[in-house]
């Protein structure tokens, strides 16, 4: 996925000026079961939804896991880094 496509996706997610997104990126180390369980426990997703996001990360290289203000996204990215997942934040419309 190119940066341009990512940005378009962010723009679709929300058009609010102060909205940011947390993106989790694929890596060859993290286990599918582990990523699913982290998404379930941290983002409060059902097993089904958490697995769908995990597959998106694994197959498409990334997934948007949360949307909100920059400070909240920093908290989410910090939590993901705490779990050893690679996450980034960006303005959703960029």
């Amino acid at each position, binding site marked *: 996925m190119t*940066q341009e496509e990512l940005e378009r996706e962010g723009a679709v997610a929300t058009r609010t000026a102060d909205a940011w997104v947390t993106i989790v990126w*694929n890596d*060859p*180390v*993290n*286990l599918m*079961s*582990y990523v699913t*369980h*982290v998404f379930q*426990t941290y983002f409060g997703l059902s097993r089904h939804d958490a697995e769908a996001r995990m597959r998106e990360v694994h197959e498409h290289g990334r997934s948007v896991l949360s949307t909100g203000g920059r400070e909240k996204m*920093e908290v989410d*990215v*910090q939590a993901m*880094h*705490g*779990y*050893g997942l*690679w*996450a*980034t*934040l*960006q303005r959703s419309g960029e």
Partner: protein
Amino acid sequence: MRGFQARGAAAVAELDDEERMVVARIVADVGLLLGGEQFGMADPGAQHARDADDEMDGIFAHLKGLEESLAEPDDPAVLRLLPSASRDDRDVADEFRRLTEGDLRDLKVARLRTMWEQLSEDGPEWEIDAAEAMPTAAALTDVRLVLASRLSLDTDEDADRLHGEIELATHALDTDADDDLGIDPERVWLGMLYQALTWLQESLVQYAMTAEDADE
């Protein structure tokens, strides 16, 4: 080595003495890499542990290169443990690092220290309370990230290739073939350690998921 299995409100794995020492050593190395103090230095039993370490020199020889590379401040393994929070916005990345890096380092070092202390106890069992399952799985992830960086596992294909190389090397060992496979023995050794930790972590995550399903 036996993977984690449920026993009461805990998960229990079994590692023999050599396995415990190897895992404890790499855990301590990752703690040092993150800027933590040497685990166990204030411990009166540490001398005993160091004596035992000397006997393990042959095994640990393969970790030497890892330890040396860890000392570098711009080590890619550190970057993998404390990654950038933005791919292209330097201000966002710098601000995030300023706000969170200290806390993330402390969290990771504390988890590694707990794991090291558990592995430094006597006996083959490694017991983890249900509530500690995910923090321990996260600490195992950090150790695996460092090994993966050392093994240059950047893509899923790299990981598959490593798996193939190890199969080839162990098959050659089993059949006493002395063909030169062109595979670095240190790479095979670190790769096997990586695979063992992957397998242990998988059993622990399966335990955590099953335990949570049972609660619902």
